[in-house]
C-alpha cells in the first residue's frame, strides 16, 4: 500500500543530502571542537561556516546565533532566563493563548513563581489583535513572546506590527519561528526580533538540533551551564554532525526554493479544498486560508470526530494529525482550537491538520481528498443506518 505523509508540521523526513552530510561528518569530524589540537581548529572553521548559513538565513550577525538541542530548549532558555535576569526591571510577560507547550508551560510555571503573565486571546481566525496587545503592554513588561505562526492552524501573527510597537519599549521580543523557518523568509533585524527559536527537524534536517538567535545587546545567563562552548552560552560538547546537517537543510531551503514551495503548497491546498467541495464533504477552514503559512491547513470536517477519522485514514495509508504532535499523544482537546472556538467543542473535536512537505505530489493531495470523502460518507451512512 502506498503511504502518504501529511504531518510535516510534526516533523519532516531527513533530506538524503542532509543524511549524507551528517554521515560524512560523523566519520571525518570526530574531534572535539573544544580541544586545542588540530582537529579542534579545523572543525572550528567549519562550525563558523555552518553558523554563517543560519545567521544569513535570518539576517542575524554571526555572534547572535547559537545551537541548542531544539526549539523546546531555545524557548525554555529565552523565557526562563530573561525572567530570571530582568525581574528587577519588571515581572510582567506577554504571550498568546495558542503558543506551543514549550512556551506555555514555562509561562505557567513563571506565573506560579510570582510573575504576571498576560495570555492574549485569539479571534476565530486564530490570531491576536493589536488593540489587545497595546492594552496589555505595560512599563514593567520585560518580555513579549509570540509565535511567528501557529503550529496547528498555520495562522500568522502580527509580528511586524508588534516589532514596530516594541521599538519604543524596553521589553524584549521573542518569536518562536519553529513552523516558519524554511517556508517563509524571516529577517530578524527588519522585524525587530530580539530572540528567535527554531528546530532543524521541521526543515528536513535532523532531530535534536535547534537554533537560538539572540540580539547581541540582550544578555541572559545560560540554562545549560558547564564547558565554554557556544561562547559560554550553551554547554555540552559541540554537536558538529547535526549542526552541519542543520546548515545543509537550511541551504536546501534557500530563498529561491522557498518561493517555489510556497507556490506549490498554495496550489495543493487550493486543489484539496476544491476537491473536497466537489466531493460533497461538509467542511470549514479553521483559521484563515490566505493569512497562513503555506504548508498548513486545518479543517473542520463536519460530522465526524477526528479521533474516528484519523485512525481510518491511517489505515488507508494517510498520516496526519488532529492537533500538534505533542498534544496528540494525550486525549486532550486542542488548546489552540479551543481558544479559537470556545463555544464550539464539536468543531474542536472534528478538526484535522494537514501539513504539506517536499515529498507530497499533487496526486497525493487528490488521493487524500478522495480518502477523506470516502471515509466521511461511509461514516455518515453507517450512522444513518444505525438511526433507522
Amino acid at each position, binding site marked *: 500500500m502506498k*503511504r502518504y*505523509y501529511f*504531518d510535516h508540521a*510534526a*516533523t519532516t*523526513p*531527513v533530506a538524503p543530502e542532509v*543524511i549524507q552530510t*551528517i*554521515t560524512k561528518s*560523523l*566519520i571525518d569530524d*570526530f*574531534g*572535539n571542537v*573544544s*580541544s*586545542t*589540537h*588540530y*582537529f579542534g581548529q579545523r572543525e572550528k572553521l567549519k562550525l563558523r561556516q555552518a553558523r554563517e548559513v543560519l545567521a544569513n538565513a535570518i539576517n542575524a550577525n554571526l555572534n547572535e546565533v547559537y545551537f541548542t*538541542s531544539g526549539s*523546546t*530548549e531555545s524557548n*525554555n532558555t529565552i523565557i526562563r532566563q530573561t525572567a530570571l535576569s530582568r525581574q528587577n526591571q519588571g515581572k510582567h510577560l506577554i504571550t498568546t493563548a495558542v503558543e*506551543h*507547550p*514549550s512556551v506555555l*508551560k*514555562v509561562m505557567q510555571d513563571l506565573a506560579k513563581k510570582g510573575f504576571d503573565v498576560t495570555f492574549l486571546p485569539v479571534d476565530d481566525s486564530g490570531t491576536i489583535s493589536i488593540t489587545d496587545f497595546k492594552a496589555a503592554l505595560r512599563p514593567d513588561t520585560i518580555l513579549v513572546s509570540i509565535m511567528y505562526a501557529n503550529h496547528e492552524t498555520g495562522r500568522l501573527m502580527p509580528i511586524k506590527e508588534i516589532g514596530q510597537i516594541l521599538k519604543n519599549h524596553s521589553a524584549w521580543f521573542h518569536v518562536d519561528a519553529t513552523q516558519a523557518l524554511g517556508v517563509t523568509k524571516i529577517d530578524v533585524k527588519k522585524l525587530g526580533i530580539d530572540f528567535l527559536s527554531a528546530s532543524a527537524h521541521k526543515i528536513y534536517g*535532523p*532531530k*535534536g*538540533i535547534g537554533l537560538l538567535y539572540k540580539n547581541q545587546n540582550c544578555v541572559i545567563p545560560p*540554562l*545549560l*551551564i*558547564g*564547558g*565554554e*562552548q557556544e561562547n559560554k552560552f550553551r*554547554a*555540552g*560538547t*559541540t*554537536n558538529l*554532525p*547535526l549542526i552541519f546537517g542543520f546548515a545543509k537543510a537550511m541551504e536546501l531551503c534557500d530563498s529561491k526554493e522557498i518561493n517555489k514551495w510556497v507556490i506549490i503548497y498554495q496550489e495543493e491546498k487550493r486543489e484539496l479544498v476544491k476537491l473536497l467541495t466537489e466531493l460533497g464533504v461538509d467542511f470549514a477552514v479553521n483559521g484563515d486560508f490566505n493569512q497562513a503559512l503555506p504548508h498548513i491547513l486545518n479543517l473542520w470536517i463536519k460530522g465526524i470526530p477526528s479521533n474516528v477519522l*484519523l*485512525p481510518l485514514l*491511517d489505515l488507508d495509508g494517510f*498520516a496526519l*494529525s*488532529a492537533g*500538534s*504532535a*505533542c*498534544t*496528540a*499523544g494525550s486525549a486532550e482537546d486542542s488548546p489552540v482550537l479551543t481558544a479559537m472556538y470556545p463555544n464550539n467543542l464539536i468543531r474542536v473535536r472534528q478538526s484535522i491538520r494537514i501539513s504539506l512537505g517536499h515529498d507530497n505530489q499533487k496526486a497525493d493531495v487528490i488521493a487524500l481528498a478522495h480518502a477523506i470523502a470516502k471515509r466521511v460518507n461511509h461514516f455518515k451512512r453507517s450512522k444513518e443506518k444505525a438511526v433507522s
Partner: protein
Amino acid sequence: MIYFDNSATTPIDPRVLDTFVKVSQTYPGNPSSLHQLGRKATEVLELSRQQIKDILNLKNREVLFTSGGSEGDNLIIKGVAHNRKLSGHHIIVSAIEHAAVLNAAKQLEKEGFEVTYLSPDKNGQIRPETLSNAIRNDTILVSIMAVNNETGAIQPLNELSDILQKYPQIVFHVDAVQAVGKQLESIYLNDRIDFLSFSGHKFRGPKGIGFVIYHPNRHFDPLIAGGGQENGLRGGTENIPAIAAMAKALRLSFDNINQCQKKYIEMKNILLNFLDKDPDFYVISKNSKIYTPSIISFALIGVKGETVIHYLEAQETFISTTSACSSNRNQPSHVLMAMKEPDEVIKGELRVSLGPQNDISEMKNFVNQLEKMKDKLKVFI
C-alpha cells in the same frame, strides 16, 4: 595518525553510524504523532530505552534521554535543588567534578544555596571521611563523579554510598560520563545512587545525545519544559536516530571488554615504563588500581602542556592538556589544583586517553615520539 583523546570524544563506531543512518531513513516520524509513523518511532524509542535498562541491568530505576552529559548534570543538580529547597539549602559536590556540575552548583550558590566542595586526597580520590564530615542536617544533594576525566581516578562510590546509607533523605547523583566501557558497573550501579548522567559520544555513540538514570521516587524539577515527552520530565521532539545509535553503542561498549581492559593495562604499562625511567616526566595517574588504565595523566616538567600538544599534532598524534572544555582558555586544571600538585606539574599537564579502536603498536609509536620530542625540546627544560 594516533588519536589518544578519547576522554574528550570518541570516533563513532561504524556499526553505530549504520544504525543512525538506517533509523533516520526508516523511522522518520515524530513519536508524539498517533499515526503509524509516529507509533513506529515510539517503538524505536521505547525499545532503545529498554535495551539500556537491560544492558545495565537496572532495577527500580528509569531512563530519560537528554542532549548529553552537560544537560544531564544540569538537570539533576538544579532540578533536585529547586525541587527540594524547602527541605534544605546545602549541597555537596567534589572539587574535581566536570564544569557542568561545578558551574551548575555555582549558579545555585547565586540563588542562595550553600555548596561544599570536597577536596580529594593526593591521589585524586574523595575519601569517605571527607564526605562524612561535610554532611549537615540541611544537606539535600551530594554529587560525586564515577571516574575523573583528567586523572582517571575511580571514586570509591561504594564506600561513599555506605556513608550515605545513614542519610536516606539525601539525594545522591553520580556523573558517570567517563565510566562507560571501563568495567566499572559494580562501582557506579549500586542501590544507594539515585541519579547518574551519561553522554553518548564518550562511548563511540553520536554527539548531542545522552541519558540520565533516575530513581522514580526521587523528584526533580524539569530543566526543559515542553510537549510532555519523557513523562513530562524533558520536553522536545525525541532524537530517535541518535537514541537508537546510543543504545547500540552502549551494547558494543561491552564487546570484548575483558580484552580491551587488558589492552589498556598493557598500553599504560608501556607508557609508564618509559615515563618512570625519565626524571623529567612526572606521572599523575600512577600504576595503581585507583586509576582506570585508559586515562593517563602526566607532565613533562618545565614544558608547557600546550607546547607538547602542538609538537605532537604536527606528527598527527592527538592528546590533550586538561579536559577539552577548559583547555580552550588555558585555565590551569582545577582538578590538579585540588590535588595540590606542584605548579610546574599543573602547567605541564598532559592527558592520554585510550579507546577500543586503539592498539598496542600505536602506544609504542607514541613512546618513540615522546623520546624524540624530548631531544628536540631539551632547550626548554
